[in-house]
């Protein structure tokens, strides 16, 4: 896969950390999923036939994810903007710095190219940072998709890719998880009047 495309995927992940509007973040993640699928399709001629189907699955899975999250956002309009991030640029800087540190610390993963290794590890780290730093439950669900996109990029970087059955299973599982996340997000919104995860802090010992 083209190096520039892989780093573009990472840049989109960083933009999600920075994004203020939920709809913009959903569009970015959906675009990331589609570009990942297109990138995989470009590799298909040099891979076994099953890889083409796996690449199509990767391309197609962005649509239901976008639909589920977009519908959920439409149904849960926040009465007022959630507390904006205190230091959005600092969060992006931290995400980039932690990604670089992780890349430096992790031994070679044995993927097809070094760029694939670095980009996939970066996406996993950025997804986790999105979950940790963003208060909105929708952004945390988007963080999950970014982490999975990072793993999918790594899988594309393996000469044979993941077996088709596993690739299909991963796509279905992710769709189910995001559907459940959307259901829970809406119930949280109904119960608390907001999708701010800061209201979910009563269970402590």
């Amino acid at each position, binding site marked *: 896969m083209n190096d520039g495309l892989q780093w573009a995927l990472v840049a989109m992940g960083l933009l999600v950390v920075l994004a203020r509007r939920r709809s913009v973040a959903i569009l970015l993640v959906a675009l990331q999923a589609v570009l990942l699928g297109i990138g995989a399709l470009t590799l298909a001629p040099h891979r*076994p036939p*099953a890889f083409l189907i796996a690449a199509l699955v990767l391309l197609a899975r962005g649509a239901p994810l976008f639909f589920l999250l977009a519908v959920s956002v439409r149904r849960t309009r926040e009465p007022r903007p959630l507390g904006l991030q205190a230091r959005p640029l600092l969060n992006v800087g931290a995400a980039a710095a932690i990604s670089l540190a992780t890349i430096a610390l*992790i*031994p*070679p*993963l*044995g*993927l097809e190219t070094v760029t694939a290794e670095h980009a*996939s590890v970066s996406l*996993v780290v950025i*997804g*986790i940072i999105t*979950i940790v730093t963003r208060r909105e*439950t929708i952004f*945390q*669900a988007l*963080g*999950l998709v970014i*982490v*999975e996109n*990072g*793993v999918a990029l*790594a*899988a594309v*970087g*393996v*000469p*044979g890719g*993941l*077996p*088709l*059955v*596993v690739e299909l*299973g*991963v796509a*279905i*599982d992710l769709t*189910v*998880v995001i*559907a*459940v*996340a959307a*259901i*829970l997000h809406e*119930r*949280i919104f109904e*119960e*608390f009047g907001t999708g701010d*995860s800061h*209201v*979910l*802090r*009563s*269970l402590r*010992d």
Partner: protein
Amino acid sequence: MTDAPTLLCLAMLLLPLTAALLICVVRAPLARDRVNVAGAILTAGAALTVAALAMTGTRGPVLGGWLQLDAIGGPFLAVVAAVGLCSALVSPAYLRTAHESLASPDTERAWYYACFHLFWAALLALPLIGNLGVAWVVTAATTGVSALLVAQSRYPKALEAGWKYLVLTTVGLAVALLGIVVVGAAAPAGGGLAGLSWQGLTASAAHMPRSAALVGFVLIVAGLATKIGWAPVHNWLPDAHSEAPPPVSALLSAALLPTVMLIAWRTRIALEPAVGARAGSMLFIGFGLASLAVSVPFLWRRMAWKRLLAYSSLENMGMLALGIGFGGRLALAGVVIHVAAHAVSKSLGFSAATPLFVVRPSAKHAPAHGLLRANPSLAAAMGLSLGALSGLPPSPLFFSEVLIVMGGFATGHTLAAALAAVLLALGFLGLARVLVEDLMARGPQRAEGDGAGRRALLALTIVAGVLLGALAVLAAFLPGSGFVRVLTAGTLP
């Protein structure tokens, strides 16, 4: 392989799916309860027969290699079947007391039962799946339905617990998937789906570069650890166990955690030629000691019944990690007894929670003080569960813990075994304190309970007592048995 195991495996997986479908079709609540009970009895019957076949020597691939009957999968399958049956049987009683749900009042029962049977079906498949990639897919599939079950009551705390569980375990499983990708890349010939089968991995492990295989192995086990609930990635566990409906808490604690741990154990065995015995052992021992150390302070705190059971799960999963890490005949015999005895004790403990919350609603979020005087039959069930979980002799958990610690000394892990013994003693004292200071303390006068419910709980307590006694006797014979010889030789004979 004859046709009987294939048909039984097929029945074991299709029956809960059919039950889920039928429950959605029928309308009357009573009919839904009946389909649930009938489906559960048939499913458990098929699963227990498959487990018995696996434990008595019927081994090999089933359903075109998707499933694998072997010695190690048998006991885990039996545990999932028994815990699922118990949870299904007590579910109607829970639903009679449930006031709110994620679904509308008309569909509440159907949603609960459908999610329950889908979750159970996935758990029944897990111990027998013959492939790491497919095992990951099925493990991940349990997350969605079980998160809905955790948040079923729709109380704010249940929503919080369900959300945490969904997010944390999904991140963990994504890390495990990255590990699978790394292992797949390290395999010399790739090999597609067959390359990720337990046999395929074992065959290719010897030719994998150690560094890449080790990174993949650590990512897989660390990722699965979030789902198993090993410290320090256990944060969802106390919340989900305490807020889920009691029958679901039993499934999570006694079936899901050990079953996912089996996947980690199988991964260790398959990748051992690449990563070495020491690295695998150290990783499991590390998770085991961390889980024991984190759980002990909480076992000393006075807290709500289900939350206490949740921290006991953390302790017991830590003990199992130690047993797998130590390896050897004694420790692995201890692991088998521990999984079964933990399942019986936890099923009883969580089943007692439904009547407990009826007679003492405050017990949802506070210790159940003075229950022995107020409700002796309930206190007997909770006392038996807690006594067994604490490792009070002659609890089979006492014998399994002794076997695991002795196994640690026998295999040269002296420091870890000694530390485990100290932490276990502290955990025992904490739970014994709860037994004496809460359950047996002076409290309110006799509370009125539901007569039919009391009889059912008494019957469950007697069955659990008999099973625990049988497991205690079994603990004396298991270490020298041929069954454990197969386990020490690996998962595949």
